[in-house]
């Protein structure tokens, strides 16, 4: 808890100061972010989802398009694209790598006018499933795909 308030404090002074100086953002928009330490520190996918969304029960959905390579030559840079733009009311998209030391990789929250689409590059420790979890209309949906990793990307 201490760390979170510390983070919040540095964010408030750091990011907000930069943004305000540049006249780009109001401080409140920057402060909206509160890094979920518990979810990102979780060692299991279900625990991470529990801390992030308050539930870990997900339904499979064919409307989520998860684009990931079948074989990643370099686990440190695995391109992942999650396209849930067909779904309505997308609130959040998370990307998880189930067998990473901490599975939760990133979480994107969307305002009503944003499109449920995220493209990024993640690190993967070994061959495993990449899981995309989409929260739409208060429910969790998921899609997953196995990615074979020839060189791990988490330390060593």
């Amino acid at each position, binding site marked *: 808890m201490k760390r979170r308030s510390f983070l919040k404090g540095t964010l408030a002074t750091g*990011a907000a100061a930069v943004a305000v100086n540049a006249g*780009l953002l109001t401080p409140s928009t*920057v402060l909206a972010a509160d*890094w979920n330490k518990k979810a990102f520190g979780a060692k299991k996918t279900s625990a991470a989802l529990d801390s992030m969304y308050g539930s870990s029960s997900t339904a499979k959905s064919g409307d989520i398009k998860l684009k990931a390579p079948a074989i990643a030559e370099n686990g440190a*840079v695995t391109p992942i694209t999650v396209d849930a733009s067909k779904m309505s009311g997308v609130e959040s998209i998370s990307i998880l790598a189930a067998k*990473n030391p901490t599975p939760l990789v990133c979480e994107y929250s969307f305002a009503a006018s944003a*499109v449920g689409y995220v*493209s990024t590059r993640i*690190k993967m420790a070994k061959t495993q499933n990449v899981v995309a979890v989409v929260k739409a209309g208060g429910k969790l949906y998921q899609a997953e795909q196995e990615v074979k990793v020839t060189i791990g990307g988490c*330390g060593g």
Partner: protein
Amino acid sequence: MSIKIRMRGKIKGGIAEVKALIKHPMESGARMNKKTGKPYPAKYINTVIVAVNGKTEIDAQWSGSVSANPYMGVKVKASKGDKVTVTVADNTGGTGTKSIKLK
């Protein structure tokens, strides 16, 4: 030192695809320094905000498992002339921000 961001945006049918490349080591804190046997200290971007004309559209949280020099592609509803801003902050207090005007 502020975090450097390169950005590009393209509008297609009322939706802008915004691509950002961020220069950052994204050190997760788990990688070992083989010489000293100690881990490299964690330094990664944990907060990313995408705003259109000053209004927050996407608010992302990252962990150290996002690749170094992260790439982020997102889509937002926008029209010509709108200002898209990406603001990032890392766990050590470093920040960076970049704006582009869509055309």
